[in-house]
Structure formats: structure tokens, C-alpha cells
């Protein structure tokens, strides 16, 4: 078990990352505009539309409440998409992994490169949303400058989580289930749309197990300037869970590809 988790990683992992970056440079305009379109729709429909009918939450207007959380959820979605569909297409249809593994790059570096890439996507799309809400005047504190750091760490976590799913159920049709059974429930019950304090205690403790819950705490706290030690705990939670999930993802991918 221990030896199975031993990893073969060198600086070549950045060559894998660079390959993804080179490819992305050719299409970033389209993909970036599509990716921040969706959170903007939520912001418009819920913040400006529904928000009119919602009373102040913890002293905030509804749009002030959800805007920072949408940074967190778009970070989750972007790495989850990248490290399910994106990774799977490269692995299964384009055989990109097979090509890389025939060079001095190891499979573990390929997998970690995918995770870093997923994390970068979270960072990128989350930051775009942050910028948009800044322009809309919804950023209240310079603490928001730390949001990109949170995005990188949460990106690592969601990327690894998604690749674990591939490792366990390597089938493109199964990703529907991943999104409807894992990602959407996280999206709905992690405090993005409503505070969890009104829910039964059992639900609140379940939420503690949701990575998105901690990311939302962080982005909301930092954007609104409501900082404190509790945010350090949220951050540590993310770091520890990411550190546990990454080697598992790498191990499962190695088992899947190298046979």
C-alpha cells in the first residue's frame, strides 16, 4: 500500500503543464468567455432578479451574499470539467498520455500535470469572476487579493477528486453521475445560495465535509473583509484534503493507464 503510493515525480511535470498551456493559448478567448458567462447568468438571475425578493442575509443584500460564493463554485466547476472530460478525452481518445509516457516523462508526472492544469483553470476562471464582481463594486476588502491563492489550492483538490472518479469509473458516461451526484449537491448545499445556519445541525456537520463549503467561507470572508482565525482552519482543511487526494489520484491513474 505504501509502496503503491510512492510517486515518480520530477520537474518534468512542468513540461506536461506547458503542453496544456500551449494548447490552451490557441483557444483561450472562446473558452474563457464561455466559462465566465455561466456564473454571470447566476449573478444576474439570482442576484439582481431573485435578490429583489430576498431579505437581507447577515446584513448583506442577496447579490453581495452570492457574488463571492460564485467565485468558489466556478473554481470547482472548471477543474471538475477539466479533470473529467478533458483528462478523459486526452487519455482515451487522443492517446496523449501514451505519447508522453513514451518519452522520459513518467505517468505520475502526466497525472500531476493534469491536476496542476485543473488547478490553473480554477485559478483562471475564479479570478475572472473576482474581477467582474470587483467591477460591479461588490468587493469590499483588499483581503480579496488572497482569493487567487485559495483558488489554486481548491483547484488542486477538485482536480484530484475528479481524477479519482476517472480512476474508479473510467467511462465517459459516468461523468454525468459525477456531476449530478457529487458536484451539483456540493454546489447547492455548501452555502453558495443560502447560509447553512438555518439548517438542522446534521446538515451543517455534513456541510463541513464539503470542500466547496470551506472554499465559499474563504472567498466570502476575503471578499467581504470578514476575516478571522476560522478562515485559517478552512484553508488548512483544503490543504490537508488536497494533499491526501493527490497521491490517491496519481496512484489510480497509474493503475488505469500502465498495464
Amino acid at each position, binding site marked *: 500500500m505504501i509502496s503503491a503510493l510512492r510517486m515518480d515525480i520530477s520537474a518534468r511535470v512542468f513540461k506536461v503543464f506547458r503542453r496544456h498551456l500551449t494548447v490552451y493559448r490557441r483557444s483561450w478567448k472562446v473558452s474563457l468567455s464561455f466559462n465566465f458567462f455561466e456564473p454571470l447568468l447566476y449573478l444576474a438571475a439570482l442576484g439582481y432578479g431573485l435578490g429583489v425578493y430576498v431579505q437581507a442575509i447577515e446584513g448583506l443584500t442577496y447579490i453581495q451574499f452570492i457574488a463571492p460564493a460564485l467565485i468558489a463554485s466556478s473554481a470547482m466547476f472548471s477543474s471538475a470539467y477539466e479533470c473529467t472530460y478533458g483528462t478523459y478525452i486526452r487519455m482515451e481518445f487522443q492517446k496523449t498520455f*501514451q505519447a508522453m509516457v513514451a518519452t522520459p516523462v513518467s505517468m505520475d508526472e502526466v497525472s500531476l500535470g493534469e491536476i496542476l492544469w485543473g488547478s490553473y483553470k480554477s485559478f483562471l476562471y475564479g479570478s475572472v469572476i473576482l474581477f467582474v464582481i470587483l467591477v460591479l463594486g461588490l468587493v469590499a476588502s483588499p483581503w480579496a487579493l488572497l482569493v487567487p491563492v485559495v483558488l489554486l489550492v481548491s483547484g488542486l483538490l477538485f482536480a484530484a477528486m475528479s481524477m479519482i472518479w476517472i480512476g474508479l469509473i473510467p467511462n465517459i458516461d459516468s461523468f454525468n453521475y459525477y456531476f449530478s451526484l457529487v458536484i451539483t449537491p456540493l454546489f447547492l448545499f455548501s452555502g453558495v445560495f443560502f447560509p447553512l445556519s438555518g439548517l438542522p445541525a446534521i446538515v451543517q456537520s455534513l456541510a463541513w465535509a464539503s470542500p466547496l463549503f470551506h472554499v465559499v467561507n474563504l472567498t466570502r470572508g476575503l471578499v467581504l473583509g470578514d476575516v478571522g482565525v476560522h478562515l485559517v482552519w478552512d484553508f488548512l482543511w483544503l490543504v490537508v484534503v488536497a494533499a491526501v487526494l493527490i497521491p490517491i489520484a496519481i496512484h489510480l491513474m497509474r493503475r488505469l493507464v500502465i498495464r
Partner: protein
Amino acid sequence: MEVISARNLVKDYNGLRAVNGINFTVQRQECFGILGPNGAGKTSTVRMMFGFSPITSGELKVLGLDVSDHAREIKAQLGVVPQENNLDLDLKVLQNLLVYAGFFNIPERTARERALKLLEFFGLSDKRDAKVDHLSGGMKRRLTIARALINDPDIIILDEPTTGLDPQARHTVWQRLRQLRSRGVTLILTTHYLEEASQLCDRLIIMDHGIILDEGTPEFLVGKHVGSEVLEVGQGAGAGEMLITQFQSQIRGHLVVGDNLVLYPLNGRQLLASLQELPQQFDHYLLRPATLEDVFLKLTGRGLTV
């Protein structure tokens, strides 16, 4: 000097034995062929050489290094052309070579120089900015071979380099491979084209069901198993058995392939003359030089023996 050696090499996939204890060596600067029908274990064998597939048991050394714990050093010195094209569809032609060079830590300037030379060598210079998807099958294959040469390897492994190409494209690839060999590159080539094997390979092994049926130079194998000539007889309805019994003393073997009876005569002209004296008429006779194909058919038993 041997650059690759396999001892009792075994590969299992979840209980299925794909390679069953094979032994062979590849010498520096030769073209070594692995010939075998579908499912023989050719791909499994070469994949183990570049660490894509861990060996189940036995020993496999490349450049004197054990594949199980020196994958990285070995891969740095190999060029690999996989059976399935895996060019980067998201990148253009030249970019494919440059990004791939990055995986070998080749400095950008060197990589670009080499890439441009390789594109020229493979007749792809005017396609350098084309999308890989827009290349023809033959061009994709040539690009894949060019990519395998980006690290200037001493050994290149080609898994069915010309499968699916039209005859002209195939000849172009062969010509390039011959040029590489004359430059001193060691080639390891799997194929089920007999012509490819006889055109290119100095030495080959014939594999089936995970074992090596025989090995040697193409001429040696033909001479050993078939002789210099074969006589094909279009035998019609089951006259084969009779012919074989009647001419037993004049042949060293035979094979039935569909409606054709293939005889391995001791003396071709004499046997042909005797056949023509028979009262029966046959659809056709053909006396021709024996080829690797006859050896292959005989050894793999693809074709039913009477």
C-alpha cells in the same frame, strides 16, 4: 554488441498471457523484425521495452539497463512509433515536434533546428503550420516517425509503421527507414506485412500466441522451412489429398490455403512436369520463388493442413 536482450520474458494481463517466456537479442545497428498475426503479442513485447507496460516476469534489458528500474534513462535514448497514432491533435505539425522535444528537455533552439530538418527529411516542410487532423494517413505516420527521431535516438521502435497506408505511402516510409538504418540507427519493427519484413529486416522473430516460433534472417527462414520454390496448384474439389500421397517423395512439405494447394518441391520443374502429365486438369499451376509469406503461413498454421 547487443542493445536489447530478453530472457524468459512474460507478460500477463489479468490472467491472460500475452507474452509467454520469450528470449531474443537485438544487435546494434541492425533492423530487427517481430513478425506475427493479430494478437501474437508484438505490441505487448515492444511496450515493455519503453516501460509502458511493466514486465510480469523474466528479464528485459535495453542498452544494458533493466527496464523495470531505469525507465527514464532508457526512454531518453529511444524513439517510439506506437501502433496507434497519438499525435497531439490540439497542436499544429511543427508544434507537435517542439512540444514533444520539451519532454526530453531538449533546448528550444536545438529542438527547432532538428524539427525543421526532420520535417524536410519526411517531406512535410510545407505542412509545418497545418493542423494534424488535416494530414493524410501517410503524412500522419511520417510525422509520428519524425517525432520519434526528435531526441536523436540510437534505437527506434516502430509498431506496425505502415499498417493502413496505401502502397505508395508505404514505400515512402520504407525508403526513409532504410536511410535511417544506413545511418546506423537500430530499428525494431513489428509488422504483419511479409514484404515489409523481407524488405527491411536483417533478422526477425516470428511470434504467435506469445511465443517465438522461429528466428533468423529472412533467407535462412525461407530456406529452412520451405526451400527455394513453391508450386501452387488450384486443386478444385479435394484432389489435394491424392496429390500429396502420390508425390510424397518429391516434396518436403505442403500447405492448403483455401482452394490452393501449396507444395514445397525438392525440384520445382520436375514436379511441375509430373503434375502436367497427370490425366486430371487443375485450375492453375504456379511455380514461384518461396517467400517469407510461405514461412509465415506454415509456421502460424493460418491455412488448413489437409
